[in-house]
């Protein structure tokens, strides 16, 4: 049983190490994210004016919240486009006779490089935040729990991307779907601002959608940790994770049958 899954761990590990070869790519996109953080610092500084709290957060907490959400949403790259291209071109057929499950293989491959990108994007954006708004208080005991919430968020990002990428088999275009998916993460996922910015109805719906588990919840835990929130995030996240992976597996199986009819 352990051996069955060990290969996926090694795939993730190899991809983490491979990422060092593309370090300038990641640094380049990290600089762009740092620029976005700089814009947000300017914008939110004006919004705060003399106010102590906005949506229950101080200005430094708001900026660090944004540093975290930006790293969560941008570190995985264009997964939908990547999976969509493999599905559309029929390249996915090459994976079917390999001794691994395509979806789990893609997950292991993606999570390895995503973790690498996350660390770098977070670190470079954090320098900008540290210089311009200063640090926030983080309790070291909370860090392992934050790491779990972060990994869960990145996993859900993958699960949604894989589902939408496989849909490209029928929809024909995955790049445009990627644009809309990213905008949903920006907005109702809480990347651009905490969900309290929305009217109560949209906020309540967003709180129960998986998008918020990618950006809003992990970032909120980062700036304002509570064990109650953590337990809610894990419980809620695991349920969405199971639903999304099952849906993706079913969709993939259905597509694979069609794929063989099409002759690959």
């Amino acid at each position, binding site marked *: 049983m352990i051996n069955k899954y060990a290969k996926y761990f090694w795939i993730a590990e190899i991809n983490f190490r491979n990422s060092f070869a593309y370090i*300038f790519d990641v640094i380049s996109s990290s600089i762009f994210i740092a*620029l*976005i953080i700089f814009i947000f610092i300017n914008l939110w500084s*004006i919004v705060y004016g003399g106010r102590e709290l906005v949506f229950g957060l101080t200005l430094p907490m708001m900026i660090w919240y944004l540093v975290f959400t930006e790293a969560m949403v941008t570190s995985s790259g264009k997964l939908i486009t990547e999976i969509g291209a493999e599905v559309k071109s029929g390249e996915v057929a090459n994976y079917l006779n390999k001794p691994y499950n395509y979806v789990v293989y893609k997950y292991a491959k993606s999570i390895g490089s995503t973790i690498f990108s996350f660390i770098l994007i977070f670190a470079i954006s954090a320098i900008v935040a540290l210089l311009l708004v200063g640090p926030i208080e983080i309790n070291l005991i909370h860090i392992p729990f934050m790491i779990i919430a972060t990994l869960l968020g990145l996993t859900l990002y993958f699960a949604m991307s894989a589902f939408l990428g496989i849909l490209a088999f029928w929809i024909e275009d995955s790049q*445009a779907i990627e*644009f809309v998916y990213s*905008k949903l993460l920006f907005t109702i996922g809480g990347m651009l*601002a905490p969900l309290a*910015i929305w009217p109560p109805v949209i906020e309540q719906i967003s709180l129960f959608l998986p998008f918020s588990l990618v950006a809003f919840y992990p970032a909120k835990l980062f700036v304002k940790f509570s064990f109650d929130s953590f337990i809610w995030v894990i419980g809620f996240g695991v349920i969405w994770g199971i639903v999304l992976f099952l849906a993706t597996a079913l969709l993939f199986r259905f597509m694979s049958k069609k794929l063989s009819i099409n002759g690959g």
Partner: protein
Amino acid sequence: MVDDSMGIIKDHLAVSAEYLKINVKTFVEYRISFVLQVVFIFLNNVIWLIFWFFFFVNFPVVNGYVFTDMAMIYGIVAMAYGLSGIFSNNRKDLAEIINKGKLDYYLTLPKNVLFHLGTSGLSIFSIGDLIFGIIVLIIFGGSYPLWLIILFIITGVILLNGIGIIVGSIAFYIGNSERLSHTLHLSTIALSIYPIGIFGDYAKLILLTIFPVAFIGSIPLEVLKSFSLEGVLLIIGVALVVLAIAVIVFYYGLRRYESGNLIYVRN
């Protein structure tokens, strides 16, 4: 002499029109994909605008700016970006074209290299941006003079192309600069959709001089809100200066261009 120049311009415009026709035909061949891409990009922009609407519901005035100001900037930038993508999308891929030796194709043909290169690419997403821009400007730009909006869309296209050419031409000078070029393209868009008034003094200085993206959407908004002839002339002047610098940077760099032996299929 004048007839010759007119003939050359006509000739180039005809080539550009042919490219546009061929590119549109190629995309329309895949109808579902074409419609989906246009609709999704439109939707993508709408989601963005909805976010800013609610942002301003929470904070109605941000340093003197209201939601309609943000929408106007976004509308002008979307129109300029859309038109630029339809008529000269290759500006975004210039660094890659130079690095991979794909410039050879353009050098061997009897048309102006920069013009031919720029006008031969089309981004289908741009049609979604264009439609979105038109709708936003109809809704929010009704109180401003139409000729001024059209003028600022044109200067926006010139600026986007000029900055795109400069950013892409870096490849002539420092070799593999595709990543840097891509980051600078993204930064151009990211910085051009925010009002200049939200930035601090140093950032303002950069956005008005060495990286003059504020002249794409933000400064035009200021001129629309309180008209001044000096403002209009300044925007036109900056656009033309950026374009002139772009042409100089490109052709100076072209002297350093070395072809490769990579064989590729041009599609």
